[in-house]
């Protein structure tokens, strides 16, 4: 049975549970949704939040800096430094006006938080784009979503209702894993294919059409909209000192109410899963940070959701998502499914990724099948993990390597059973985590040791 997809559904119940009050005071981006259960149009948005403050670019950047806002697209880079780099790039490139790109593509199938945000609070994102354009002096702004995104039309209408310093073009980018990578977006918006590039220069120097370009995740921009209004001290009231503010987290897998929740950074993993209704059946591990992220044992339940503490237990935050793996599934088999998906999503541009990812997928599939080839496949896998890491133009192969390494560690007991050729009743099981294309059993069940 495939588990419920993590959806961009934002559960109303999530606003009440363990924090007791009807609207949790630590919800920011989704607060309006919890109150009214529908997206604000521009008038409602302005009534609720007030107009954007008129801040000089330097003032705004200083505020972002003091707030310690970090990018919410996975890399967690300080946003103020990124804006400053574009301002510097503008000086260098003379007359070319900067470009702002709001990245809401969300290529990672485990994440739906950007879709949720764009649906629930579109004007916070549009506010953030306007502020970023003001801070950088941009003349053009794009809001990128996946092709076929149900939000695209509504976003166009909401964007058209505004009178900002820049008009925002909503672009639908091909729905592929690697298309939401920043260099892929820049290439696509410059008229090329939506594939990562290996250009040595940064987008802040030479991005869309050669102009200095700020590429920010849509959630980052929404936080910008609120901290510009309320200030750095307000922003830092929630979250940790290293990662201030709240996080949108996608929850899924064996949970009662999978969906998107907003929590302060540093909230224990268990509390986040509780907001999603808790486990619906016994759980053995949690996939943290998506399909290019890491498996974590249940030790992770008491770990604060923040990069430092997660890394200390071998997990990653990445684009925050928590998928609960039920006990009945085989971690190695499920990892094999994810690896086959990741291999299929390679852009096919770099040799080590084009050939390495399918090879890794094959090795972990052989391991999952516990056949006589398993020990040889295991040895090959360990060698190839070293071979593939760090050799692509983008981080796609690194994500696959990270996922596999974590699987070998977290599912160590299963691994030993599989290497010993012991039967694994769950080895032939279809994917329990959602994949964009329906997954098939990795092998006909006749080939699985019984």
């Amino acid at each position, binding site marked *: 049975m495939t588990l419920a997809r993590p959806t961009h559904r934002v559960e109303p119940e999530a606003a009440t549970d363990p924090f007791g009050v009807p609207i949790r005071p630590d919800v920011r981006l989704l607060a309006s949704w919890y109150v009214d259960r529908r997206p604000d149009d521009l008038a409602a948005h302005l009534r609720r939040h007030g107009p954007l403050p008129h801040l000089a670019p330097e003032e705004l950047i200083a505020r972002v800096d003091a707030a310690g806002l970090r990018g919410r697209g996975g890399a967690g880079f300080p946003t103020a430094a990124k804006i400053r780099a574009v301002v510097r790039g503008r000086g260098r490139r003379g007359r070319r006006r900067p470009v702002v790109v709001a990245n809401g593509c969300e290529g990672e199938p485990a994440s739906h938080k950007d879709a949720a945000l764009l649906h629930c609070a579109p004007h916070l994102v549009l506010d953030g784009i306007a502020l970023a354009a003001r801070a950088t002096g941009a003349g053009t702004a794009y809001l990128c979503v996946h092709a076929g995104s149900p939000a695209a039309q509504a976003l166009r209408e909401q964007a058209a209702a505004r009178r900002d310093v820049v008009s925002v073009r909503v672009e639908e980018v091909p729905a592929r894993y690697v298309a939401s990578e920043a260099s892929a977006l820049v290439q696509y918006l410059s008229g090329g294919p939506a594939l*990562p*590039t*290996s250009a*040595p220069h940064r987008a802040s120097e030479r991005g869309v059409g050669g102009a200095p370009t700020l590429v920010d995740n849509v959630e980052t921009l929404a936080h910008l909209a609120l901290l510009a209004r309320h200030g750095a001290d307000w922003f830092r009231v929630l979250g940790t000192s290293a990662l201030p503010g709240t996080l949108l987290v996608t929850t899924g897998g064996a949970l009662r109410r999978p969906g998107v929740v907003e929590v302060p950074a540093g909230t224990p993993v268990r509390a986040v899963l509780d907001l999603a209704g808790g486990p619906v059946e016994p759980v053995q591990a949690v996939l943290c940070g998506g399909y290019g992220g890491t498996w974590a044992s249940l030790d992770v339940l008491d770990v604060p959701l923040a990069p430092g503490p997660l890394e200390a237990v071998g997990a990653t935050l990445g684009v925050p998502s928590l998928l609960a793996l039920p006990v009945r599934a085989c971690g190695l088999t499920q990892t094999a499914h994810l690896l086959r998906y990741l291999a299929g999503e390679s852009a096919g*541009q*770099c*040799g*080590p*990724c084009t*050939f*390495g990812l399918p*090879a890794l997928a094959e090795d972990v599939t052989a391991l999952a099948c516990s056949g006589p080839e398993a020990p040889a496949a295991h040895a090959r896998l360990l060698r*190839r993990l*070293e*071979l593939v*890491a*760090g*050799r*692509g*133009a983008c981080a796609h192969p690194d994500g696959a390597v990270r996922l596999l390494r974590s699987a070998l560690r977290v599912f160590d007991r299963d691994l030993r059973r599989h290497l010993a050729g012991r039967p694994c009743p769950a080895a032939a099981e279809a994917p329990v985590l959602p994949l964009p294309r329906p997954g098939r059993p990795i092998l006909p069940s006749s080939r699985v040791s019984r």
Partner: protein
Amino acid sequence: MTHRSVGQRVRLDPIACTGHGLCADLVPELVTLDEWGYPRLQHGRTSGPVDADTLPLVREAVTACPTLALRMEPAPLE
């Protein structure tokens, strides 16, 4: 052996590279090929320092690369 720095490093463009492998023939001490025929610089990275001893050969490899995937560039200041 001390490596005399020449202020240059070599960078491999993994997208441009199609695995002809001439670089590994020319500078085996710097480049090895993986099982799929794609070059790995020392330590498996996509860029690395060049010392005075290998500089002439690296230059030759940069010129020989049919897809211009290998480039010399100034090393970042340390």
